[in-house]
């Protein structure tokens, strides 16, 4: 795993060239530390750790999926009195807006809890943006101080 670098003033970045589920814990620790470094209060860090974890899990499990593990790059920046986390990957295009919502039309004994992850993300962050640029997925999470 590459170390942390500071590409621009006040921005903290970490890249993982071949992301696996085993990297999630370290990525969470990075986001927590980075949010603290940019001066966000603990509640903001906590929320962004949860949201970033969900996004990265999805990238590993669905974005790259059964194929070769690919890179994930996370940048953390100050945003007003909170923080902004941008996550980039080169996997399959995946817009959170398309995330499978819980299927309520299925018979009661076949209902799955799909969509719980994105629901959680939307609950904890103030802004969730998706963009695809030259084969790269960019997810931006913003959380302002309460």
């Amino acid at each position, binding site marked *: 795993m590459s170390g942390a670098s500071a590409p621009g003033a006040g921005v903290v970045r970490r890249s993982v060239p071949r992301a696996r589920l085993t990297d999630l814990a370290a990525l969470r620790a990075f986001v927590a530390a980075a949010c603290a470094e940019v001066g966000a209060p603990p509640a903001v860090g906590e929320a962004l750790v949860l949201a970033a974890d969900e996004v990265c899990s999805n990238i590993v499990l669905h974005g790259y999926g059964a194929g070769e593990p690919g890179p994930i790059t996370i940048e953390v920046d100050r945003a007003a009195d909170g923080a902004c986390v941008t996550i980039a990957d080169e996997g399959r295009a995946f817009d959170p807006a398309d995330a499978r919502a*819980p299927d*309520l039309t299925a018979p*009661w004994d076949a*209902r799955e*809890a799909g969509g719980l992850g994105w629901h959680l993300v939307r609950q904890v962050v103030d802004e969730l943006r998706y963009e695809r640029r030259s084969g790269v997925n960019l997810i931006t999470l913003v959380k302002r101080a309460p």
Partner: protein
Amino acid sequence: MDTSSATREPSVTLAPAVPAAVPAAAPASDRRRVALVIGSGSVKCAAALGAYRALRREGIEVSMVVGCSAGSLFASVIALGHDPETCASMTARLWTADLTQQPDRRSLLRAAFPRLFGFDANWGLRNDARIMRRMQEAYGERTFADARIPLFITATDFHTGEQVVLREGRLVDAIRASIAIPFAFRPHPVGGRLLIDGFMSDPLPVGVAMREGANVIVAVGFESPYQTRVSSAGRFAFQLSSIMTNNLLKASFAFYGLAHHSEVIAVIPRFTQRIRLFDTEKMPYIIDEGERAMSEQVPYLRRLLEAAPAS
């Protein structure tokens, strides 16, 4: 304080409960019984009496009753063991338009001049003396322990917004807390907490039934009506709370349906007439529509219960 006794108060004394038909054997296992959840909806909640009538007619037993807001009135009379007809006449006497016609005159002064007259969490626009008196006549000192079917009534903690499940103590206190409609009746203290209407934390508390071990759940609930004319601050506030709680109702209900290990059957009666908060004279119609809506689900309900293991 309401001192005018010019109008004759209808008497709502509770006749001693006629014991429900004593079953010859032990009650059917919980798998073969349904939990009944009655959400907020003022007089429309009477539809739950119709649903109860249909269940009794079909010999389907109720394992527990959960009531929220006006639903707590109907839930409690059912849980006390009254037959549907007695439930209907009792609740019709309790829920009438003149309940909210006694303004709490000091409240308006307190709202306008908070420092002078003292404004705190104990504030409501309507005097609740009348409703308390009627409920006292109807329920007396009966407690949850007098219920024949396990009963749970929900309210909301005014300070934290959390749902509070009441399952012991006097019924009048629990019901009064559950229907402490914001802006109308003042919050009601129970067990050291200041409680307001249950619908603010969960208008249709299916989760309570799930937590308490229910299997098949029958849920009777209604969306809060939207205002046709917003002609006062009270109506404005009510419109806002309707918007929020209707969204809460839908989101919660979706989640419960997803998370429950058994079926949650929503009984949604179709009313062709407009029913306003206190249209008590429409109760027979409302009950019939509730019975009809429940009856439509009975074949499916039977299949579910018969498929369940015997114990």
